[in-house]
């Protein structure tokens, strides 16, 4: 159906976890989307047409995603899907995207290797996030032995599996790798095991929110002070942990402390638009903002919203946003500037090292 010229708006479908596991972070994603749409519309829209956001709840899971994608693609007939969601939701939505032939920009960091001719990813994969932390621990903090703790699900296990193989590739040793179910909060036995094995450093990949807090609190209560790299904590949760989070190393493609002019402008605009209701921008909401601009650039390059033309144009356009320059030209993924930070006593994050242009590796060799 060639309706691009006859349509009055460019519709961006946003399936996101308004309920369920992602419900804590979804509001920030919706906020950054709203800002992007507002800015683009104020500057004349995309190819002269106003941008309209259509948000649908995917319940943070497979069933909800199926419903959300179906309604966005077949009922609302959106021009593109741009969203952050759980891997379960993404895996359920991808067949619908493939069947309908709509461009889909996935804006969440994830375990990697999800491929489709219609999907592009502008967030990090383990190759980009894990290596800076392990390198820093091994090279600068003389860590030779590591202990890994995670939540028992796809992402937790996937991240730690990658971490283990990278550590061993570097000649380090993994003394223990333990998991708890996602809603588990009693880390007692694991922490006692960690203390008895006496590793040089700890790396964790739990589900976001509560497990991060319970694990960190119990670690500190048990007197564990070795270098602690957390692959899954965000600035907001770190701030709410009070003093317990001090010293934790995190590796993200976005930190509010990034000093670029693009980030300052972005933060000022978010504060102006949302005031007290502002949810802290984070590594899940900023890629969403940039993805909308990337879509705009692709449509302008292609000269229309025709799905195939846009999909062909996406790897060729780039956008410099709060995270720096983004171009999804590496097997549908993008090289990124990774920031390694450390949580301060006040709950903020201090950037201690920046890694430019970190390659995502072989994500989709067949595309």
């Amino acid at each position, binding site marked *: 159906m060639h309706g691009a010229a006859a349509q009055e708006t460019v519709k961006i479908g946003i399936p996101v976890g308004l309920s369920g596991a992602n*419900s*804590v972070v979804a509001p920030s994603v919706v906020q950054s989307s709203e800002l992007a749409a507002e800015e683009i519309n104020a500057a004349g829209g995309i190819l002269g047409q106003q941008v309209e956001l259509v948000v649908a709840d995917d319940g943070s899971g497979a069933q909800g995603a199926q419903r959300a994608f179906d309604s966005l693609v077949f009922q609302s007939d959106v021009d593109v899907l741009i969203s952050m969601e759980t891997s379960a939701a993404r895996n359920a939505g991808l067949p619908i995207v493939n069947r309908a032939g709509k461009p889909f920009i996935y804006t969440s960091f994830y375990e990697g290797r999800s491929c489709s001719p219609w999907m592009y990813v502008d967030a990090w994969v383990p190759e980009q996030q894990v290596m800076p932390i392990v390198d820093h621990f091994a090279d600068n903090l003389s860590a030779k032995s590591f202990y890994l703790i995670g939540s*028992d699900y796809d992402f937790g296990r996937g991240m730690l599996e990658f971490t283990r193989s990278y550590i061993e590739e570097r000649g380090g040793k993994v003394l223990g790798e*333990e*998991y*708890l*179910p996602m*809603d*588990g*909060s*009693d*880390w*007692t*036995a*694991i922490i*006692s*095991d960690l*203390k*008895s094995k006496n590793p040089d450093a700890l790396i964790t990949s739990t589900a976001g*929110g*509560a*497990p*991060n*807090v*319970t694990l960190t*609190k*119990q670690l*500190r*209560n*048990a*007197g564990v002070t070795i270098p602690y790299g957390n692959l899954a904590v965000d600035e*907001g*949760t770190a*701030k*709410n*942990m*009070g*003093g*317990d989070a001090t010293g934790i190393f995190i590796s993200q493609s976005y930190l509010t402390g990034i000093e670029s002019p693009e980030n300052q402008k972005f933060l000022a605009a978010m504060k102006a638009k949302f005031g007290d209701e502002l949810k802290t921008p984070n590594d899940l909401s900023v890629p969403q903002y940039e993805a909308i601009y990337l879509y705009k650039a692709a449509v302008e390059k292609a000269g229309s919203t025709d799905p195939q033309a846009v999909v062909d144009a996406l790897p060729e356009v780039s956008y410099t946003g709060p995270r720096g320059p983004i171009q999804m030209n590496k097997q549908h993924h993008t090289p990124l500037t990774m920031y390694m930070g450390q949580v301060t006593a006040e709950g903020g994050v201090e950037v201690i090292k920046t890694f430019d242009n970190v390659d995502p590796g072989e994500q989709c060799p067949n595309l």
Partner: protein
Amino acid sequence: MATLFLDILTTASMLFIVAAGLMIILGVMKLINFAHGAFLTVGGYAVHVVTDAGYNAWLTIPAAAAVGFLLGVVVERLVVRPLYSRPLDAILATWGLGIVIAQVIVFIFGREVQFAASPISGTAELLATTYSAWRLILVGAAVILGVLLTALLYLTRFGLNARAVIMNEDLARGLGIDSVRVRAMTFGLGAALACAAGALITPLLSVDPNMGLPWLVNSFMLVLVSGVAIPGLALASLLLGGAQVLVSTFVSPIIGGITIVVLAAVILRIKPQGLSRG
């Protein structure tokens, strides 16, 4: 070895503190309060509110207990008492109440994890090992709680009335004991204990709308196994809590999480009246 021993002791203490409120309500009112997990959560949020406002973290425990007592008395009057003659419906009502409380918390505070300061942090030296200071304090708290509850039950008029109602409510009423008032006070006490327990375990947990839910199942199984007796609850806590720690340590933490439930089912199969004598 010392660490394992302390792990078992502190885990048992936490279980005892958390389950005590549920047991009291079960004993006097023959009612499983499925809002117990929600009361734990309320206790956690009490800690958040009190410490966020800048007050001393030690005040959170009496504050939580006070909030819990008030909440319990109100809930008993509005939700439980009208369903006195329909015990199964009353249990369902408490389940619904738990859901409502959790959602009200989301309305007021949002879904995110909230900040809550701890009264003390760090470790202490004990038995030639460094161990979490707060966990050790919980052992003391459990002992004090056990002593206070026993004193309440055996040395006070209220305790006498409560024990009569536990043994045989109709007979107690026949003797002139106002069982309605006993039930109201008991529910208030059970809720106060649940909220105080929530406040006591907050330093080790995160304050979020569902923080109490995992403890509900374990408390439920513990209370079924222990029967209505404080020594029974202490024994059950040591036994089941110890088993959980042993399985988590030597088999896997994931399987350790279901140890209490499985072991409770086994014990009840062998000895349906649980660990208490009657």
